[in-house]
């Protein structure tokens, strides 16, 4: 494909100028980022200045019982009980102490009275509840937690060990009563104007003083101290109500500080040092310096922002340059000019890339400066905490820009393809939401702290190979520690994969530009009835591309739906039955979720299920090659997977269990072969080489069809290793199916290949138990060896196999050269109505 860069440049130049003249784009790209963040910042500042928080209502019942130092003074917690003195003004405290005549501001005397009445009602209910809790605690671990320390621990252990006494007859009734009461309390609390209610038990202060006295008097009997009752004040709040929750935490802060003071007084009285309650008295030192704190903050925020902005920055210009061109009727003007389709797509792609990068950079710069400015402004007022957050270091910024390129390139190419597919601007906009959701999902995945690139980490290279995730992780690592050269080894794979994905997306865009259907399709109105009728009545012998895609979606959807069902049925299966149960499920899954949808769709939606599923006899030679190929491909596949072991994430436990079941020697061999080789060979071939390959190939593009069928075949395997393995095999299987135009050779290949894998697993299991003598044979050791308890193939085997495989696959490829495509459109014979002749 020859590209004249002069044309690309011309198109790029025109598109950029066009975009800059478009007010919408200008607004999105330039004005919005420059104005938005300062605007938001000013707005936020104003909000914090003009809107002060309403004080929340706290009621303390039995407040007369509270010991000194005073917890409440003049309708508020004194400022000394808070870290930040301002917090005190955010709580209004009403007590029922006899001498409390405080009139709360903005509250009428009646309201004040009502508050106390409500509080008293709730108190009664709470006391009722607590009595029930005591009764129920021996059988309920959660309720047991509410009891005082020793008692609670005892009950909990008993419940855990299943050593509870027998439940009383009315246990269920009590539980019901408890739940009913809980509901009533909740309603009462919500209906009152209370945010937090504190109930002080009778004699609380005296009790506390008694303890103090006894502690101070060292000569007294400790028995007496132990026998004193434990009186606990109760705090009531509603966690679902944010106002109540916030108030609760503030009250807790005051109470904790007050309690600390009480403890201090108690120790002083007992003439004990203040450090008694802190035997360890830990001192923790934070060695992070400001740069690093900032780096870690930027490392968390920037990759996510970068991705979202690169996407939105690419999306709108892409819609305008592709779908917009169709809508404005200039697409055909462009198509008849000498610039090739690739040049047009490249020019447009570079435009989108430029805008994506510009938007992102402007957003980041504007946000960074606004943020810094506002922080520096507020730090003068509020002071503590925020401090001055330094901007990222120049090195970090450098990496930010470098990694923006592959990200923006990927999004630009993807958006351009989607936009080319769309008929109009409006249709284009609809594609944003799904794209955005998928991107968000991948971004969240890469922001998870446990997902990171490490030089030794198993799956790092695999992450690098994922779109979006790769650049995001590399950026995260580099922003966290800009000087970290260790992760730079991942730069190349990340760039390579990003470029690869971008090229695929670009190729798709070029393909769309070559497709008459996409360029000239009219906006048809969708008629469900017509569509259904067409689907069921005007059947073609083979399914359409969309049907094949739909079939695959259906399979994936069914798999997703049944995950819970399948894992559910594994619960409670004993160890000895595990393999058997797993095999049953595997067979059911293959038949119901893979074969059934394909057969169902083939019968329902095509006029020839036989042709669709390729149910015809192949030539003998084809069958022979299909049986021979697995034997040479098997060692290659084993060694390839082994050498890529560190590339993929660890196998999930379920997959490991499945592999273990393959070499389970308690089961007869025919069962294992039946489950792991025969069933998949039949079901997966019917689905992927039958329905899906026929559908994808219905447009006459066999190569694309084989690739797509193998990718879908890979994806259905879920586990990354298997996805990779199956995709490669899918290529060979697809080729066999297309060349033989029969399902049988594929089934034979699949059966042989999976059987070999089963035998290999068994042999490995055997050699790991006892190494057989024949492995020591010189001749055999040329071909097979046994390091680390698995059976491995040696270089000589691999070379032989590779050679043989090459010859056979080449033979397969050459088979098709002479065969004409059975799906090509028939040449239409023009009707010859000799009107001119007839007239004379």
């Amino acid at each position, binding site marked *: 494909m020859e590209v004249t860069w002069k044309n690309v440049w011309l198109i790029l130049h025109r598109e950029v100028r066009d975009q800059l003249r478009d007010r919408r784009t200008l607004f999105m790209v330039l004005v919005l980022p420059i104005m938005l963040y300062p605007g938001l910042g000013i707005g936020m500042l104003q909000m914090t200045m003009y809107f002060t928080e309403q004080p929340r209502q706290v009621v303390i019942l039995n407040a007369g019982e509270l010991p000194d130092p005073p917890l409440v003074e003049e309708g508020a917690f004194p400022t000394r009980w808070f870290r930040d003195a301002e917090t005190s003004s955010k709580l209004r405290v009403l007590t029922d102490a006899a001498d409390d005549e405080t009139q709360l501001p903005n509250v009428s005397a009646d309201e004040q009275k009502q508050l106390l009445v409500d509080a008293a009602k709730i108190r009664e209910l709470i006391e009722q509840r607590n009595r029930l809790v005591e009764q129920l605690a021996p059988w309920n671990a959660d309720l047991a937690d509410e009891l005082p320390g020793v008692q609670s621990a005892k009950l909990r252990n008993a419940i855990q060990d299943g050593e509870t006494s027998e439940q009383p007859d009315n246990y269920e009734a009590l539980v019901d009563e408890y739940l009913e009461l809980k509901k009533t309390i909740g309603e009462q609390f919500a209906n009152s104007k209370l945010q937090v209610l504190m109930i002080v038990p009778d004699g609380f202060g005296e009790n506390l003083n008694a303890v103090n006295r006894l502690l101070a008097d060292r000569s007294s009997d400790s028995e007496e101290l132990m026998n004193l009752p434990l009186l606990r004040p109760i705090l009531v709040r509603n966690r679902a109500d944010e106002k109540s929750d916030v108030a609760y935490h503030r009250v807790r802060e005051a109470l904790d500080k007050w309690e600390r003071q009480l403890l201090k007084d108690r120790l002083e009285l007992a003439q004990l040092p203040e450090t008694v309650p802190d035997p360890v008295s830990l001192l923790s030192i934070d060695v992070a310096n400001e740069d690093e704190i900032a780096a870690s903050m930027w490392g968390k925020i920037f990759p996510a922002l970068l991705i979202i902005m690169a996407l939105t920055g690419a999306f709108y210009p892409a819609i305008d340059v592709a779908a917009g061109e169709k809508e404005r009727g200039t697409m*055909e003007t462009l*198509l*008849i000019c000498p610039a090739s389709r690739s040049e047009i797509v490249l020019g447009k792609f570079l435009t989108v890339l430029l805008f994506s990068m510009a938007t992102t950079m402007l957003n980041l710069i504007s946000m960074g400066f606004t943020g810094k400015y506002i922080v520096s402004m507020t730090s003068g007022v509020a002071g503590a905490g925020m401090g001055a957050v330094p901007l990222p270091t120049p090195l970090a910024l450098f990496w930010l820009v470098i990694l923006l390129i592959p990200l923006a390139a990927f999004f630009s190419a993807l958006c351009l393809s989607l936009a080319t597919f769309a008929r109009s601007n409006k249709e284009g906009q609809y594609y944003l939401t799904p794209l955005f959701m998928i991107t968000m999902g991948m971004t969240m995945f890469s922001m998870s702290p446990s997902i990171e690139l490490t030089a030794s980490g198993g799956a790092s290279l695999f992450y690098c190979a994922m779109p979006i995730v790769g650049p995001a992780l590399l950026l995260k690592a580099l922003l966290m520690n800009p000087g970290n050269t260790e992760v730079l080894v991942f730069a190349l794979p990340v760039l390579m994969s990003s470029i690869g994905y971008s090229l695929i997306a670009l190729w798709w865009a070029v393909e769309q530009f070559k497709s008459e259907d996409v360029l000239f399709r009219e906006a048809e109105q969708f008629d469900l009835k017509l569509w259904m009728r067409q689907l069921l009545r005007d059947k073609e012998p083979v399914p359409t591309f969309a049907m094949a895609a739909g079939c695959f979606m259906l399979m994936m959807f069914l798999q997703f739906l049944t995950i819970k069902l399948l894992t559910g049925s594994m619960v409670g299966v004993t160890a000895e039955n595990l393999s058997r149960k797993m095999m049953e499920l595997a067979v059911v899954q293959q038949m119901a979720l893979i074969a059934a949808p394909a057969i169902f769709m083939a019968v329902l939606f095509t006029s020839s299920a036989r042709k669709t599923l390729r149910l015809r006899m192949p030539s003998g030679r084809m069958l022979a090659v299909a049986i021979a190929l697995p034997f040479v491909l098997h060692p290659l596949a084993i060694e390839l997977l082994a050498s890529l072991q560190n590339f993929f994430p660890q196998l999930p436990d379920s997959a490991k269990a499945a592999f273990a079941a393959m070499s389970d020697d308690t089961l007869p061999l025919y069962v294992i072969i039946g489950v792991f080789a025969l069933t998949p060979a039949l079901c997966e071939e019917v689905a992927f080489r039958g329905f899906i390959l026929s559908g994808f190939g219905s447009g006459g593009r066999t190569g694309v069809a084989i690739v797509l069928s193998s990718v879908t075949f890979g994806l259905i395997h879920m586990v990354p290793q298997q996805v990779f393995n199956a995709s490669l095999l899918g290529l060979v299987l697809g080729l066999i199916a297309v060349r033989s135009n029969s399902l049988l050779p594929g089934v034979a290949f699949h059966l042989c290949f999976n059987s070999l894998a089963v035998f290999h697993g068994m042999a490995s299991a055997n050699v790991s138990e006892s190494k057989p003598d024949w492995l020591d044979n010189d001749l055999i050791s040329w071909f097979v060896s046994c390091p680390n308890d698995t059976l491995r193939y040696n270089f000589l085997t691999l070379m032989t196999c590779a050679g043989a495989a090459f010859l056979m696959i080449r033979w397969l490829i050459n088979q098709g050269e002479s065969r004409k495509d059975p799906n090509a459109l028939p040449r239409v014979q023009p009707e010859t*109505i000799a009107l001119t002749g007839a007239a004379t």
Partner: protein
Amino acid sequence: MIEVSELTKCFSDAKRGTVSALGGVSFEVKPGEVFGLLGPNGAGKTTCLRILSTVLRPTSGRTIISGYDVANYPAQVRSRIGFMSNNTGIYDRMTAWEMVEYFGKLYGLTGDALNSRMDEVFTMLQMHEFKDLLCSKMSTGMRQKVSIARTIVHDPPVLIFDEPTSGLDVLVARNVIEAISKLRDAGKSIIYSTHIMSEVERLCDRVAVIHKGLILAMGTRQELCEQHGSDSMEELFFALIDRYDAAAAAS
């Protein structure tokens, strides 16, 4: 020079399955000649011309333009034709001058050659007074002129006009017709598709009547009238189409 032989084109349609839009069309156009393609809407005119302009691929048949096969050498063909239709719009956010200059550059013109050619075209079409106006602010007539200027800026030997006067008022339409006859006098091979009889009578040297993807009759105006025994193009046209539809209904 245009040679079209046995051109067919099939579409797959959601409602009707595979539809044959062109069922074997053959004609040729010589330099200095305006070849009229006369047919009702949906006759296959636009499909045929889109194949000629390389935007669509034919299902079968051969088309040679200036010695290049359309199917095999689309790039060479594109640089040798000027194509204008209802669907070749102009860019709203460009001025007349920028628009024509942009396409001139895409056709490989540069520097002085481009400038003098553009000056020539703008003078010929009397476009100088609105050359710096954005296309979005133009009247239909001005837009049509920009479109024609875009079509001829690279001075191609072959020109294809697909209903260039549809939606224009009579004055502008007359200007367009005049511009095209000047181009014929300059020795271009021109295809002119329309469903307006008077334009055919004024402009076309030879005419093909096309209906449902087939050419029903072809020849000079005089030949056709003599062959079918009718006085005017209009009468002839209706007679041909009625006869075809009757024959199609009978079979």
